[in-house]
């Protein structure tokens, strides 16, 4: 049986018969004919619904996610440059508004043989943490993240110029964001948050109208990364000159604002013992409050991260991380704070675990991501399940579960925001 089969295969004949030939031809188009166009299109439409599992007295409506979204992608490949567009248009039933978000509108090209340019609206990411950010000061969308939109939406776009040069000694990556772009942070509109001045959660509407940095060259953001892969171990140095990404400071008139923040850090990532380790550190320098005594400005911090990820058994992966935020000049902070009882611990630490199970062929992906802070005694658990029925249809369900003993801690303040969601997506 095996012998003629192998001979036939050698001669280029099918040994599986006509049925298999049909399968090989089942693409439904002629492979040789396609790819004539320089344009590529794609996208999806998605319906999503989520609601609170708790009662938040600031919100009559339990809906936390209710939207019909369309996402369009267009790419043009030219001789000397690429053009890329990614945009979302959706009706957001939680805030009764139609929203448009251009996630990418950029031109990319290479020059000097070793340098890549990307100019325009774009998403940028670096660092080694899994949902923990030490040196990645690019904008995040926490509203989307806490609502159960796809993880992709955790990253928010910015108008920027990215220049990456590749040298033998080291690679250099520069992202210049001419106009400061803040996070899409929790502002009370969708979820309430803890106000130390009020001593309780506030919400029900967008309550934060921050004073933005003036738009001038001196206030642009610049992020720099030097990195190199040596024998499979990735080393990186980071620098950032910009502002707090969230309005965690107060002006002398007690309006929320963004103070200067410079960040310097380093990371290393590589293989060890059948798994993957990562170490990262960052110093967040509070430029306007170097002695830590100004209660309107957040203090400087050291941030440290150690992580390890490994496959426990076939298709089951476990990732663990230890993360530390070490507030500098802590005595000065407490001595000057109007609400010392609500200040975070000097060394706030967080442990995360991510358990991922992928069914054969990734048809089902089960994920459980848990943050737990021993110092704050609070937690945030993100279970989710994704089912890929086909290239077109995908279904996702999940939850954002917050728990805390005290209302003022980082995750504790969102306890009433605990929600569950479902999403149905059709790709085209």
């Amino acid at each position, binding site marked *: 049986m*095996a*012998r003629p*089969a*192998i*001979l036939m*295969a*050698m001669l*280029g004949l*099918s*040994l*599986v018969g006509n049925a*298999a030939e049909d*399968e*090989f031809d*089942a*693409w439904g188009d002629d*492979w*040789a004919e396609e790819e004539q166009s320089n344009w590529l*299109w*794609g996208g*999806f439409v998605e319906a999503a619904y989520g609601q609170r599992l708790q009662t938040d007295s600031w919100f009559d409506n339990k809906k936390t996610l209710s939207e019909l979204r369309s996402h369009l*992608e267009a790419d043009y*490949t030219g001789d000397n440059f690429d053009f890329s567009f990614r945009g979302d248009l959706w009706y957001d039933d939680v805030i009764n508004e139609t929203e448009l978000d251009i996630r990418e509108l950029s031109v*990319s090209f290479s020059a000097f043989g070793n340098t*890549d340019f990307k100019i325009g609206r*774009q*998403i*940028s*990411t*670096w660092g080694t943490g899994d949902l923990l950010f030490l040196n990645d000061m690019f904008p995040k969308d926490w509203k989307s993240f806490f609502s159960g939109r796809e993880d*992709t939406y*955790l*990253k928010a776009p910015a108008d920027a110029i990215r220049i*990456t040069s*590749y040298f033998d000694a080291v*690679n250099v990556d520069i992202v210049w964001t001419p106009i400061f772009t803040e996070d899409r942070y929790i502002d009370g509109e969708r979820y309430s948050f803890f106000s130390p001045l009020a001593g309780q959660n506030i919400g029900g509407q967008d309550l934060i109208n921050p004073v933005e940095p003036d738009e001038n060259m001196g206030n642009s953001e610049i992020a720099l990364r030097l990195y190199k*892969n040596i024998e*499979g171990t990735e080393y990186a140095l980071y620098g950032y000159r910009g502002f707090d990404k969230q309005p965690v400071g107060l002006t002398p008139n007690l309006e929320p604002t963004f103070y200067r923040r410079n960040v310097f850090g380093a990371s290393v*990532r590589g*293989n060890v013992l*059948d*798994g*993957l380790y990562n170490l990262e550190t960052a110093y967040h320098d509070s430029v306007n409050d170097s002695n830590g005594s100004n209660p309107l400005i957040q203090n400087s911090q050291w941030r440290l991260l150690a992580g390890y*990820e*490994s*496959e426990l058994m*076939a*298709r089951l*992966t476990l990732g663990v991380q230890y993360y530390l935020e070490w507030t500098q000049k802590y005595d000065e902070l407490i001595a000057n704070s109007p609400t010392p009882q609500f200040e975070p611990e000097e060394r706030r630490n967080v442990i995360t675990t991510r358990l991922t199970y*992928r069914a*054969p*062929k*990734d*048809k089902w992906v089960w994920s459980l991501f848990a943050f737990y802070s021993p110092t704050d005694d609070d937690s945030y658990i993100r279970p989710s399940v994704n089912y890929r*029925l*086909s*290239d077109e249809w*995908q279904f996702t369900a999940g939850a954002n579960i917050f728990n805390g003993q005290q209302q003022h801690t980082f995750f504790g303040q969102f306890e009433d925001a605990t929600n569950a969601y479902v999403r149905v997506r059709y*790709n*085209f």
Partner: protein
Amino acid sequence: MVKYILVLLMPLLMVLQAQAAGDEPLSVDKIVSKANKASYYAGDDGRSDARMIIVDKDDNKQLRQFVILRKDKVDEGDQDFLVVFSRPSDVRGTVFLVNKHVDRDDDRWLYLPGLDLVKRISAGDKRTSFVGSDFFYEDVSGRNPELDTHELIEENDDAYILKSMPKNKENVEFSYYQSSINKETFLPMVVEYFNDKGEVYRRMEVVEVEEVEGIPTVMKSKISNLETGSETFMQFRRPAYNVGIPESVFTSRSLRNPPREWLEAQ
């Protein structure tokens, strides 16, 4: 005159060589090494268009289309792979980079364009689905022969039948696998994976082989998962060898900015 004699002698020399080879049967290690070479080290480098159709037991179909680039650092040794996806739309722009090592764990990265995330893939994570297909990551970049012990269990006129047992059972789902290796091309034409009960639950078959630049090249292959009833058909187009892909193509630059001159057919 000398040339003329050589031409006359050539067929005779070849017959003698063939006889010498026939007299001395190949050792298992030699067969494994030749099969590994034929499957993953043809030429010094190579490129090909590829596409897969994934068919589940209910006859639902999914498609994956990509270009695969490869460069050997050392024959049968370290090598690099770059896989750039163009279809379907939600996978487009995803790039998979492997720096394969023989003496230590491979370095693997997946670039996810939506997040601009360069995700490093855990070293042990080799026998998980390659982008939702019945192929594993390890099927694409090759399994290190050193990870298994090999035994020649049968030999006929056309094929060597090898049985391979994993040295370390922890990272694999099979108890052993059996390969039928073509004697002429040394391509494994059928590989069957057995579970603890000694049953075949997974089968790879080569469906079509063509000579490309004198190198026998798999053009169509198929993986069947007999447990779930799903099958993946892989097909190659426009394969080319020894095209001179530089080493710089297999670095992090290609994750964010795939090398278009090598993605197009030569």
